[in-house]
């Protein structure tokens, strides 16, 4: 039983990180049909800003909001400069634009920080492990789970209890009718990119605190995980992102437990096999939703 609880905690921790990743992506997708391959770079920049600030002696509690603010602003600038001119363009145009944006901000990171790995040093508390009965919970895992829960709660409150949220949900459902209500598409886009960037800032810190080293090309892994989670859960819906993220976390931890060691190398193939299976059996994803942000 203890072992099972341990696995559940592990799966929750990994899954909640994936859920956050997917949430940031799905938000922008829902309002402009953009599959944003540059999203992972927001995480990378958040990580680099954390390293720079920490090296400069900025206290941890000040560094965190600054990183989130930086990723928020970066995401808004990218949305305004690179994606806004393509509102309403075919998805393929947006996809290619996102690759262009990815390259620009990736090479900016290479120029600024070089290609050698950098390490994000966090306060020693983050390496501690809590012993809860027989279950061992690393503090970082606990922070990840709590952060994800808080972000999801704030996200839902923002979406369902504010005028901004109603505008986002409307624009995700019927963009032209939303304009007829006097809502500017620019404003909706700015809000979507801001929230997406803030989430990326938070996940960036959690992700690189977990993996340790950071290079300008570290965006690939989180981006792929986010897309798998989204496809599993259902593209364009908040619930899909959360279900997909947690599902992917459970699948990964489940495989690490159940598969013999020799087969562990095949786990990515098994994950992609699961994605294909889900797409065949439930084309709308596990949560069965299509692009409806509110669901």
């Amino acid at each position, binding site marked *: 039983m203890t072992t099972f609880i341990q696995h559940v905690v592990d799966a929750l921790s990994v899954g909640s990180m994936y859920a956050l990743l997917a949430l940031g992506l799905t938000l922008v997708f829902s309002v402009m049909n953009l599959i944003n391959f540059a999203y992972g770079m927001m995480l990378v920049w958040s990580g680099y800003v954390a390293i720079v600030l920490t090296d400069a002696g900025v206290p941890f509690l000040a560094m965190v909001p600054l990183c989130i603010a930086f990723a928020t602003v970066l995401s808004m600038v990218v949305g305004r400069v690179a994606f806004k001119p393509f509102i309403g363009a075919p998805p393929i145009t947006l996809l290619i634009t996102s690759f262009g944006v990815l390259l620009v901000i990736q090479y900016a990171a290479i120029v600024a920080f070089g290609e050698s790995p950098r390490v994000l040093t966090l306060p020693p508390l983050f390496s501690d492990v809590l012993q809860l009965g027989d279950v061992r919970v690393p503090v970082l895992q606990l922070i990840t789970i709590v952060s994800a829960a808080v972000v999801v709660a704030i996200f839902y409150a923002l979406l369902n209890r504010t005028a901004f949220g*109603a505008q986002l*949900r409307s624009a*995700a*459902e019927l963009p*032209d*009718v939303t304009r007829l209500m*006097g*809502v*500017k598409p620019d404003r909706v886009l700015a809000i979507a990119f801001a929230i997406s960037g803030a989430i990326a800032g938070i996940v960036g810190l959690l992700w690189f605190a977990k993996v340790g080293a950071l290079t300008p090309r570290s965006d690939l892994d989180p981006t792929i995980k986010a897309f798998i989670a989204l496809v599993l859960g259902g593209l364009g819906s908040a619930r899909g992102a959360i279900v997909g993220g947690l599902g992917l976390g459970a699948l990964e931890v489940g495989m690490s437990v159940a598969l013999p060691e020799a087969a562990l190398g095949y786990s990515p193939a098994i994950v992609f096999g699961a994605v294909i299976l889900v797409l065949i059996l439930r084309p709308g994803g596990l949560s069965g939703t299509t692009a*409806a942000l509110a669901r």
Partner: protein
Amino acid sequence: MAEPLLHVEDLVVGYGHTKVLKKVSLTLEKGQALAVLGANGAGKTTLMATIAGLLRQWEGRIELEGQDISEVPAEDRPALGIVLAPEGRGIFTTLSIEENLLMGASCLRRRFGAAEARQRSSEGLEQVYGMFEVLGRRRKEKAAGLSGGQQQMLAIGRALAASPKVLLMDEPCLGLAPKVGNEVYAALGELRKAGQSIVVVEESVRRALEFADRACVIKLGEKMLEDDAASMKRDDHLLEAYFGLAGPAPAGTAP
């Protein structure tokens, strides 16, 4: 002489290389109801979308109270008082009924400032709930659960919440049972009596002529004629020539 409330002059609009509206002009006086009639594909919805700003005219101009608004984007027109209830209703099904109405009222802030907008918004919502009691009763429910007729009521209510100077209604009875269509027109009739200026696009000719003060007929993107609705309704030759209608209207509803 006072400027007309809405004046559309020589509007040319199209999609790609295809011209859909060919120099269409019309005028709406304050407190008037104008019906735009025509067959499927005549360009009626294109005309409404252009007045609302969703489509940009190739030529011509649109004036509101004498002011040229041709270049004003769609999202800025509700704050000027031009509000479209679009074809197909355009209800946000993932929002509650009240949230839909509040979306309609969201332009009031730019028009009247925050304090007055709040007051007008709550008065507007009460007016809508008074008009359509079912919306008030179910205000917290998702709009997805409403029937077609109730969704149309919500679309009208949402447009009213924006306190429009010109209410544009595109096919308000599309897809509704005739009885429900009559209810929708009864509500529009009440609005008209209260002095609301309305342009309504309609395929149901007799119903529209019953409702409106004036009517114009669009055929293949051109305005063929415009006259008092009452005299059009009496002109059997005209009804037969343009709409294939002859004789008195059938009881209850009309095509």
